[in-house]
């Protein structure tokens, strides 16, 4: 059994809100006076005694986080913004201290919370390689040994003696990451650095990280919103939710749990009375639901999943030629399709509708449905905008491409290659 290299025990971090940053000397002296001279307990005293202080001046960025990591494991940390991921990384990197708890570990840690830490824009690429390398924890001999490799990886050989302020942002990032990629710590901590740079470079970086863990047996802790990258790189995953560990385990399982919890709640909208249902005096939408055809209820919608949309509405007008359009938008607001129903004559009453979108049709991404009701196919009765929101996760096999797949749709029409007989 490989040995445990990091043990996190009940880490909590409390932040003061409001007064922080404005740093008032008077207030601090007042508190000090109360605490030490008058013997009154101030808020900080309460915290040290381990009691939770729930005033709006304080926030627990982390609460009782515990986990262990073994040598060679790659841990992906996922969660919403503000879930405490970065705070956790900062504690592990020794930048900030936990309010409570203990972290123990063995081996040299390097953290990569930002690309280009310590870069000085006035200095040349060459100088910056040394500065950044040293700041990230490399020794001079180590940098000298790897200098050529770093320059090679970055692809900025021709500009190595130019001040980095004249670099394009892409070159800057490449050089900065090249330095970081050649760190050889026992434990590497990486925060969302892959959000920068072009697709090709991102791929190179992910590849480099993959090598680091699989070949050198390095332990990596990796925070990312790129779930695809987490799923491909990490054996283990940790799901943070409002400062707590929500789930921890094999990355596939944790990712699935994360995604299904994330999107399930917006898959159905149901109203019991006409009054509260969205609509107007002509149309009331009582029910909309997205029914993904999933074999395992815990798994997520991915690009292979067939989706059915069901809806029910009340039509308040007699003898009306009515049609309904189901529109799909990306989160950015671009319309993917508009499927109309056949216009028909209806009388007053409830009407039900259903539409099925086959799997292997939409690309991965975030989408919204809109229901549009019209009279005589031309005049609008009601438009129920963004009634359903959902995400389609990626699914890939046999590829080393980690970046977002191109295009709005992703059909798997067969594309066949045939080797031709070579003409001699």
């Amino acid at each position, binding site marked *: 059994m490989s*040995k*445990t290299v990091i*043990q996190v025990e009940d880490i909590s971090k409390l*932040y*003061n809100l409001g007064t*922080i*940053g404005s*740093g*008032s*000397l008077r207030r*601090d002296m007042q508190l000090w006076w109360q605490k030490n001279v008058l013997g009154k307990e101030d808020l900080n005293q309460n915290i040290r005694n381990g009691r939770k202080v729930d005033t709006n001046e304080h926030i627990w960025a982390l609460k009782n986080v515990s986990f262990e990591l073994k040598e060679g494991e790659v841990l992906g940390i996922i969660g919403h913004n503000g879930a405490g991921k970065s705070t956790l990384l*900062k*504690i*592990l*990197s*020794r*930048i*900030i*201290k*936990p*309010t*409570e*708890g*203990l*972290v*123990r*570990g*063995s*081996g040299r840690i390097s*953290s990569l*919370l*930002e690309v280009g*830490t*310590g870069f*000085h824009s*006035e*200095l040349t690429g060459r*100088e910056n390689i*040394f*500065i950044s390398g*040293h*700041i*990230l*924890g490399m*020794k*001079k001999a180590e940098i000298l040994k790897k200098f050529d490799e770093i320059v090679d990886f970055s692809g900025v050989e021709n500009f190595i003696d130019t*001040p980095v302020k004249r670099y394009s942002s892409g070159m800057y990032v490449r050089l900065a990451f090249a330095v970081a990629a050649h760190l050889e710590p026992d434990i590497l901590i990486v925060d969302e650095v892959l959000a920068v740079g072009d697709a090709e470079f991102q791929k190179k970086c992910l590849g480099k990280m993959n090598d680091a863990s699989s070949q050198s047996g390095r332990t990596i802790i990796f925070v990312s919103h790129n779930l695809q990258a987490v799923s491909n790189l990490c054996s283990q995953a940790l799901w943070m939710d409002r400062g707590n560990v929500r789930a921890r385990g094999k990355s596939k399982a944790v990712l699935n749990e994360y995604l299904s919890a994330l999107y399930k709640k917006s898959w159905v909208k149901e109203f019991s009375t006409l009054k509260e249902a969205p609509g107007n005096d002509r149309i009331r939408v009582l029910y909309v639901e997205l029914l993904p055809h999933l074999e395992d209820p815990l798994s997520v919608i991915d690009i292979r999943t067939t989706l059915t949309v069901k809806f029910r509405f009340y039509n308040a007008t007699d003898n009306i030629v009515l049609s309904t359009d189901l529109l799909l938008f990306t989160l950015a607001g671009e319309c993917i399709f508009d499927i109309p129903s056949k216009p028909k004559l209806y009388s007053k009453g409830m009407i039900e509708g259903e539409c099925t979108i086959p799997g292997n049709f939409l690309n991965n991404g975030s989408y919204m449905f809109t229901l549009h009701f019209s009279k005589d196919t031309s005049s609008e009765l009601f438009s129920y905008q963004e009634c359903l929101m959902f995400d389609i996760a990626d699914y890939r096999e046999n590829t080393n491409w980690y970046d977002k797949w191109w295009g709005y749709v992703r059909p798997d029409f067969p594309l066949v290659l045939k080797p031709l007989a070579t003409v001699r």
Partner: protein
Amino acid sequence: MNNGSNGRRLKQWEWEIKPETSWWDIGILELYSYKDLMLQLARKDFLALYQQTLLGPFWALLQPLLTVLTYVLVFNKIIGIPTEGVPPLLFNMVGITLWTLFSEVFLQISKTFSQNAEIFSKVYFPRIIVALSTLWLQLLLFGIQLLLLLALYLFFIFNGDVDFNAGRMLLIFPIIAITAAIGFGGGLIFSVLTAKYRDLMTLIQLIIRLLMFVCPIFYSLAMVPESVRWLVNLNPLSSLFEYFRFAFLGIGSVNALHLLYSGSFMLLIVFLGILLFNKMSDKLMDVL
């Protein structure tokens, strides 16, 4: 748990991160392992200082030279402060060289947190490394200015205006060390304070400017009227200026007890500075 497994448990881990840094938790070995970083940071600051400038490192010479000329003009030519038979240019140059060392070390080190917040929030290394690299750089710049002073000194020696005494000159080394150390210790304390209370940065500028007038830089201790001499004597920097001038020019009222006072003050402030800095540097990261 028995003692045996407890021992093994301790051996298993190489490091720990705990909520509090103790006052005494200063890893000398850890600091030593960061010496490359210290030198590199000093190099970076030195290079950055003179990037895209007209005169580059010559500024380190030009600045004191211009200051001295102004002082000579104002204090000696216009106000007419006597210089005990020493050429005013040399008299002022000696004082200003030492003063520049103190004020620059103090000022630059007090900016440790406010100027490096960006790096500190992204990567860990012992924060005192930055202060040490600043000290190192300032000593280097002081070295350049000392060369200028020596050149001027040589000129006046050959001119026969001052006499040279090698034994006396040896005094400059402890004086330089004590001066730099007081600046270092004070700078550390103020770096913590200014990180927490930003407005103290302006106060530092003020302190430096006021302090300059109670240091015998363009006057000597002997010229100070008895009634206010206690004020200048109270200043732990005063004896350093007197001794520094004595080493070069053989003039001034030197007093070993006064120097002892300065030395003790140095030990105290360096000790307090390092303790405070070490204790607070992690906590400050929540405030920066």
